[in-house]
């Protein structure tokens, strides 16, 4: 496989995840306006907050009649997982100054997932930017569409796109399960996340899985270090 074909494949996969994720903006837009936000408020959330779970959380608290401040705090709690992603992304992407400030806005689950597993900085940047930008553009476009159309657009899950996103993530996870300790962490993270799904709001399951990573770093210690320097 040539270098450019390899990078085209990264762009293609990233666009696929970007499109499938961006369409969910319609769900957010529709939910936000039915929860009592107006269209400008809904669109500003997608433009400026731009991290799906936090947006849903804030809207959910407002819809449930909670104080907007507690909605903000919930959104911030969920936003802490993006900080955790930065630990891995910062040395990988290697941006500084204005570029880093701009890139920070695109740090979300999907852009992180499509870049952290890359072998080179160039590949990581391609995956990060392609996924980040395509999600940003479509998420905002479909937020507006969903806010204007209300629930008429319906549930994007009906198109089966969530399965496509899951497939892309699984393809990225698979090569990273070579060692038993990695498989153990993957199983633990998946189990903890699944256990949290029925009892927590959106975004919390992935956040607690980040806690598994922290715990693994503490408990497993040097056993986590690769046998030979892989990067």
């Amino acid at each position, binding site marked *: 496989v040539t270098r450019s074909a390899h990078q085209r494949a990264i762009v293609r996969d990233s666009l696929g995840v970007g499109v499938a994720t961006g369409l969910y903006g319609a769900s957010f837009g529709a939910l936000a306006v039915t929860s009592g936000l107006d269209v400008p408020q809904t669109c500003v959330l997608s433009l400026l907050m731009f991290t799906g779970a936090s947006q849903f959380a*804030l809207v959910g608290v407002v819809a449930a009649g909670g104080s907007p401040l507690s909605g903000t705090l919930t959104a911030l709690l969920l936003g802490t997982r993006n900080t955790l992603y*930065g630990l891995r992304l910062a040395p990988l992407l290697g941006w500084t100054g204005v570029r880093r400030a701009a890139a920070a806005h695109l740090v979300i689950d999907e852009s992180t*997932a499509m870049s952290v597993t890359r072998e080179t900085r160039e590949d990581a940047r391609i995956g990060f930017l392609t996924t980040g930008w395509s999600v940003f553009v479509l998420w905002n476009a479909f937020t507006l569409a969903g806010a204007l159309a209300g629930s008429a657009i319906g549930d994007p899950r009906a198109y089966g796109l969530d399965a496509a996103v899951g497939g892309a993530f699984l393809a990225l996870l698979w090569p990273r399960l070579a060692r038993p300790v990695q498989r153990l962490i993957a199983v633990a993270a*998946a189990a903890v996340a*699944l256990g949290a799904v029925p009892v927590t709001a959106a975004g919390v399951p992935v956040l607690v899985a980040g806690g598994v990573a922290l715990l693994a770093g503490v408990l497993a210690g040097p056993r986590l270090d690769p046998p030979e320097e892989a990067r």
Partner: protein
Amino acid sequence: MTWAAILAGAAGCYLLKLAGLSVPQRVLDRPLVRRTADVIPVALLAALVAVQGWRPPWCCSCCAHPSSWWSSAPRSQLRCSGSPDPAIRLRARAGEAPLDRRRIAGRSTPAVSRR
């Protein structure tokens, strides 16, 4: 008040993202931080795959998603035209719209927003 919550939340979420990207190299070089950072992709991807659900093409997420297996919704209320369970398919054909098990269970958060 809602505008204040939105703008404060947006600013805070951006600063959390920027903080992660701005952690200095000497902190990243600490063994504990490095090991945690190395494990993050595996934990993140495994959790995302798990909560996205692994849905076979013939079934909707209401019955295939593992998180619904221990949902409190009574099975006798489920209806889904894509279910492998004939009783559930029959209820769907009886003219009722597909219904998500989580929605029956009275959860206010839509299942589409799990990411």
